[in-house]
């Protein structure tokens, strides 16, 4: 199988924009989308009429044509939506880069805007599953009658096995949250700004689905984030220091399912993320040793450990020690989620992590990682997924 592709350094991220992050935005998802897209274009120094491409998630409720229309934009030559929940996050940028690289579009906006907390909480799972016999509902029919019907429950099933296989403990999961909340505490944009926690706080938090505690689960948020992608050549003439898209990839493997991949021989890994990692490293021509910081999708703590392993930042089963030894903290060998992640800043389906990587690689992040030249950014885990390898320019 060929892992290398032709996307290396063809496109760049030139603008980022976001709304505030809250539990109740008090306005429509459409307005959030317009606000964050507008802010991203402003950041890039581009006009609404420059936009000719738009990408979002299938789960986003704001159609590209509506966002474009209300922005007062012009003609679109590329519009696309990506499936599989948070697994879509980095793939929005991948598709934008592909469109730019092939000349299908010149300026592509990727956005995700949602009142996830105040309107449609994902944490409640598939309680409102439609009774019509479709492929999707029949699939969840293997789990729903038994009560296994929330994202936390599907992750917990894998986490329990991981604990037994590798000797990981609830405290090992908790250290991921403690690290994220430590970063969030010094990020004024984070929902949990100035609210660090201790490992004791984690251990005292109630069970959601054993072995997962409340503080193993990311928060639920309202908000919107957008990024602007154009060619690297053009990017160098724009307002901000460009962030190169060194590589971008999607991945789904044999026996892949949507959160319920319980049938592979070994359920403790994230093989789709391994597939994505191989493509990123092959395309960018670098390895994990060349990455100084990372945005690791953190909707649930156990999958942060598995991702560190799949990307080769540590060996299989060793992530618990990697985290315990402080590698992921400020000043460590691989600080992760310096914005606080989805455990600390906000849950915008992975898009706020992409924006943070851009700030880091511009050298303008609130918790700046010294010498950040290359960063890995990952999308939703346990689902068909995607990731980026981004690089500072110049």
């Amino acid at each position, binding site marked *: 199988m060929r892992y290398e592709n032709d996307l290396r350094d063809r496109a760049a991220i030139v603008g980022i924009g976001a709304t505030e992050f809250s539990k109740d935005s008090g306005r429509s998802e459409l307005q959030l989308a317009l606000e964050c897209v507008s802010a991203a274009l402003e950041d890039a120094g581009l006009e609404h009429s420059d936009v000719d491409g738009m990408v979002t998630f299938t789960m986003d409720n704001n159609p590209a044509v509506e966002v474009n229309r209300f922005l007062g934009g012009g003609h679109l030559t590329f519009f696309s939506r990506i499936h599989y929940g948070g697994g879509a996050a980095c793939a929005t940028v991948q598709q934008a880069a592909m469109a730019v690289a092939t000349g299908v579009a010149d300026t592509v906006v990727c956005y995700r805007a949602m009142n996830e907390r*105040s309107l449609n909480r994902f944490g409640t799972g598939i309680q409102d599953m439609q009774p019509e016999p479709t492929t999707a509902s*029949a699939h969840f*029919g293997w789990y729903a009658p*038994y009560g296994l019907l929330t994202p936390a429950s599907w992750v917990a099933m894998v986490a329990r096995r991981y604990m*037994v296989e590798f000797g990981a403990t609830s405290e090992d999961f908790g250290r991921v949250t403690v690290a994220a909340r430590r970063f969030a505490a010094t990020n004024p944009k984070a929902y949990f700004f100035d609210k660090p926690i201790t490992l004791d706080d984690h251990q005292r938090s109630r069970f959601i689905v054993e072995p997962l505690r409340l503080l193993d689960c990311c928060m639920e948020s309202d908000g919107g984030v957008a990024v602007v992608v154009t060619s690297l050549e053009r990017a160098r003439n724009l307002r901000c220091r460009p962030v190169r898209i060194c590589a971008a990839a999607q991945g789904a493997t044999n026996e892949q399912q949507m959160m319920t991949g319980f049938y592979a021989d070994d*359920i403790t890994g994230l093989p789709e993320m391994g597939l994505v990692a191989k493509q990123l490293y092959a395309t960018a021509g670098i390895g994990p040793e060349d990455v100084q910081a990372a945005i690791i999708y953190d909707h649930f703590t156990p999958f942060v450990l598995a991702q560190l392993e799949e990307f080769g930042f540590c060996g299989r089963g060793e992530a618990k020690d990697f985290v315990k030894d402080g590698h992921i903290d400020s000043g460590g060998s691989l600080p992760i989620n310096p914005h606080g992640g989805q455990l600390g800043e906000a849950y915008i389906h992975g898009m706020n992590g992409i924006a943070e990587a851009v700030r880091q690689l511009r050298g303008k992040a609130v918790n700046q990682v010294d010498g950040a030249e290359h960063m890995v950014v990952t999308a939703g885990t346990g689902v068909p997924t995607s990731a980026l390898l981004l690089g500072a320019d110049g």
Partner: protein
Amino acid sequence: MATSKEEFEARLQEFVGLEIGAPEVGADLVNEPMIRHWCEVMEDRNPVYTDPAAAKDSVHGGIVAPPTMLQTWILDGFDMATPEKQPMNKQRELHAVFNEQGYTGVVATNCDQSYDRYLTPGEQVSGTTVIETISEEKATAIGIGYFIETRTTFRNQDGEQVGWMVFRVLKFKPSAQPAAAPAGDDGAPAAPVRLRAPRTHDNGWWWNKIDEGELHIQKCGECGVLRHPPRPMCGECRSIEWTSIISTGKGVINSYVIMHHPPIPGYGFPIACALIDLEEGTRIISNVVGCDLDEVHIGMKVSLSIENVDDEMKLPLFKPAQ
């Protein structure tokens, strides 16, 4: 009236630490008829509450009141049903502040009580209530709101503390209510039931076999490979021909979880969900029943028990193997 969230929350915090008003004094002294009524309703047959002779021989030396009656001694009686007739106090003022901002719903969520000793007939109970905490805004299944905790300290006529209670309510903005539960034949709301598995052309036969009391495993009609969940085509040989075998129902737990939150009607959380390696080599998700939750473990041997989980639905469940 437009009030910013900051102003609103600042106003709420002004109530924290306040006594809601003068102590509420019980209209009646602790007395045997009220104790008897309460015990009848609660079906509490303990003779120390109602039988003078038995009570005299007990450690109490006479009739005592059930400790859990503590709050009833100071409740308002029928006036409680007409809140507009109630005198204003700080608690009602606080609720009015919430109501103005659309947090019109109220639901009691927790009550913790502690008893210092038994009460005896003739004592007069009074309660002093303080608004102890107001949470930050929380999103709940019934709407966005704030948890209010009050602490009531109960004393007797001599000022001696006899117990306390922490009572927690959620003041919330009612969200769009789900459709009413379907009514049964007698007009009463039907009890919530577990979600059904939709039956398609691909899986309907399998659920039909469960209804008949058999756990089947799909088998390729061409190459014979076993597979679960059922699907239309064999991933090994692309054949769309298939048959099935009946599972022995013997398996080993590969992994498991205990479901706690959010509570979902019809399931009775906490329950154990497990990924089970069947003897035949396929895997299935199910519940482990027939043992304590803390006995469930990876590697545990289990065996099938097809059971009715409600009036209409059968599920293949698993129990510890004998």
